[in-house]
C-alpha cells in the first residue's frame, strides 16, 4: 500500500489565511468582512495590511452576508469570514436569498467547523453546515483535508463565479499530507490510496483519519481505496460510482452529523447509480460537548478507529449480500 506521510502540522484556517494574503496582493478587488472573530479566523493579518479593504461588521452574520452580496454586485470579491455555525446556520435565509438565489459569487469562509472545535462545546461545533449548504441550489461546498489543500481550495474558489461557495475548515493544527503542489479541482475527488476491498470516501479532517485507518487495515490484509472527496457539491459522482462498482462497498467519513452530510450525498448517488453497502462514520445525530478534539473524535465516533470498524462492518455486509 502506498504510504502517505505527514510533513508536519498546521491549521487549515492558516491555509485559508495564507492563501488569502497571497491572492490579496495581486487582486485588489478582494475585500474581507470581519464578524468580530478576526484573530480566530485569521483575517486579522489582512485587516492590518489592507485596512481599507477590510470591513468590520460587528457580531451580525445576517448583515454580513447581505453586505457581501452588495459588494459582489459592484464587482468586489467578498470574503465572508466566520465560524461555521455562525457562517452557515445563523444567516441561512440570507445566504439563500441574497447569495444563492441571487447567484452572487461570495466566498463564505467558515473556520472552526466540526467537533474538533472542542472545549467551546456544542453551540460552537458546527455539525450541520454541510447539510445547510449543500441543499442550496447554486452553492458550491468544499471541505479540504489539510493546510495545503485549504490553500488550494481558497485559490480555486476564485474561479467560482455563478454563485456562492462555502469553504469548510477547522481550528486545530493537523497533519499536512496532500503536498504543496497536490492536484486540486473543484468537483473532482482525489484518489489517495488504491485498493480493492472497499472504498473510504472522506472529507476534511477525516481524510487523514482514513489514511491512518487504511494503514491499520492494510496490516490486517484489508485493501481499501481512499477518495479525498474535498468537494461535496458538485459531487464527483463518477468517482463514487466507479468505486462502488470496483470495490463493492463504501464507507464515508466526515466530521458532521450522520444525516444530510457527505455520507448522505454519497448514499443519494449510490441509490441512483449503483447501490452497494455503505457505512457512515459521522456524529450520530447528537450534539457534541466540551472536551479536547481528539477525545471528542473518539467519543463521537469520528476517528480512525471508527473508520476501521466501519470498513470491517461493511465488508461483512458485502460478503453476505
Amino acid at each position, binding site marked *: 500500500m502506498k504510504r502517505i506521510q505527514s510533513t508536519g502540522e498546521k491549521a487549515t484556517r492558516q491555509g485559508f489565511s495564507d492563501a488569502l494574503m497571497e491572492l490579496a496582493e495581486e487582486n485588489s478587488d478582494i475585500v474581507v468582512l470581519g464578524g468580530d472573530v478576526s484573530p480566530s479566523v485569521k483575517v486579522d493579518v489582512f485587516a492590518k495590511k489592507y485596512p481599507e479593504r477590510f*470591513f468590520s461588521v460587528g457580531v451580525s452574520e*445576517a448583515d454580513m452576508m447581505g*453586505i*457581501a452580496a452588495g*459588494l459582489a454586485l459592484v464587482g468586489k470579491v467578498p470574503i465572508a469570514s466566520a465560524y461555521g455555525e455562525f457562517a452557515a446556520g445563523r444567516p441561512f435565509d440570507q445566504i439563500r*436569498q441574497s447569495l444563492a438565489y441571487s447567484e452572487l459569487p461570495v466566498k463564505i469562509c467558515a473556520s472552526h467547523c466540526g467537533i474538533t472545535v472542542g472545549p467551546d462545546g456544542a453551540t460552537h461545533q458546527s455539525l450541520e453546515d454541510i447539510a445547510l449548504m449543500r441543499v442550496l441550489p447554486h452553492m458550491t461546498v468544499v471541505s479540504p483535508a489539510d493546510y495545503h489543500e485549504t490553500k488550494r481550495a481558497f485559490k480555486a474558489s476564485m474561479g467560482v463565479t455563478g454563485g456562492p461557495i462555502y469553504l469548510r475548515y477547522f481550528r486545530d493544527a493537523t497533519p499536512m499530507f496532500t503536498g504543496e503542489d497536490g492536484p486540486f479541482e473543484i468537483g473532482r475527488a482525489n484518489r489517495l490510496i488504491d485498493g480493492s476491498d472497499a472504498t473510504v470516501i472522506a472529507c476534511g479532517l477525516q481524510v487523514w483519519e482514513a489514511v491512518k485507518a487504511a494503514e491499520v487495515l492494510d496490516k490486517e490484509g484489508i485493501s481499501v481505496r481512499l477518495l479525498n472527496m474535498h468537494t461535496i457539491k458538485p459531487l464527483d459522482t463518477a468517482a463514487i460510482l466507479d468505486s462502488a462498482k470496483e470495490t463493492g462497498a463504501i464507507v464515508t467519513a466526515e466530521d458532521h452529523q450522520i444525516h444530510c452530510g457527505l455520507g448522505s450525498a454519497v448514499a443519494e448517488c449510490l441509490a441512483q447509480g449503483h447501490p452497494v453497502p455503505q457505512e457512515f462514520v459521522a456524529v450520530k445525530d447528537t450534539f457534541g460537548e466540551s472536551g479536547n478534539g481528539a477525545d471528542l473524535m473518539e467519543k463521537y465516533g469520528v476517528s480512525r478507529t471508527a473508520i476501521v470498524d466501519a470498513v470491517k462492518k461493511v465488508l461483512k455486509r458485502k460478503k453476505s449480500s
Partner: protein
Amino acid sequence: MTGTNNNQNSIADIAEMGQQIRRDIIKMLLISGSGHSGGPLGLADIFASLYFRILKRDSSNPNWPERDYFFLSAGHLAPVWYATLARAGYFPIEELSTLRKINTRLQGHPAPAYTHGAPGVEVASGSLGQGMSIAVGTCLGLRLDKKPNRVVVLHGDGELDEGQVWESMMTAGHYGLDNLTAIVDRNFCQIDNRTDKVMEIEPLADKWRAFRWNVIECDGHNVEEFIGAMEEAQATRGKPSVVIAKTFMGRGVSFMEDNYKWHGVPPNQEQAKQALLEIPPTKFGDFITFEWEEEVPETAKQS
C-alpha cells in the same frame, strides 16, 4: 418620460405618472389573480418620483456603470416597481400582464435581471429585512472605488420588525454612509393589523437617530415634498439619511385606503372596475384595456 434626463420631468407629470402606475397596478393584479394591492398603491407617487426624478439611470442600459442603485427590500411591493420600471422603459408595458405567471420575468417577488428576473432588478428580495445589508455593501464598494453613485433602499414599516434591518442600520451609521438613503413606507399597516397592534415601532424617528442616521419625515403622496426630502437626504454629508414617508395603504381606492386587510390580496373584477373609476385615466394610457371597461376619454387612449 423614459430615458435618463430625469430632472426635466415636471412635478405635475410625475404626479400623473403616479396615478397611471396605480391604474397599472390594479390591472396587473386583476390579471394575475394574486399579489399585493395595498402597499404598491400607496407607493405609486414615491416610485414615480424616484424613477422620473431622483434616480440616475438609463433604462436602455440597466447596468449603466454610473447608475444609482435602487433596492426594494420589501419584495412583496413588486407590482409598483414593475409598473414603474415598465413605464420608465426597462421593458415593454405589455409584459405587465405576465405578473406571477409561469415563465415570467415579473416574479411574485423580485428576482435579479441576470437570473430569471426583470430588467432593473439588481438582487432578489421577498424574504423581508435583507435589502439594507445589500445596500450597505454596495455603498462600501462604491466608496472604496471613490464612485459617486447613490444607493437608495426602500423598506416597509412592518419590515422594520426584522432584526437584520437594525444590524445594517447600525453598520450604515457606523460607517457614516452618506451615499445611502433609506425610505420607509410609513403606512402604519402590515398583514395582521395596524403596526402599533402587531409590533409598535414608535418612536420611529428617535430609533433611526439613535442609530446615527439623519431623519427626514415627509408626506409620501406629495411628490414635491417627497422629492425635496430625497434631495435633502442626498445632500446630507457624514451620515446616512432616512426619509420616513407617510403614506396610505391602498391610496386612491376608497375601499382599500388605510385598510391593512388589503395588504396582500388582489381586487376581483368588480373591485377593479370600481378602483379604475376612482383613479381616472391619464395621458400615459393603460397597458391593456379590458372588454368590460367603459369608454375612456379620448386623451387617455394614447401613451
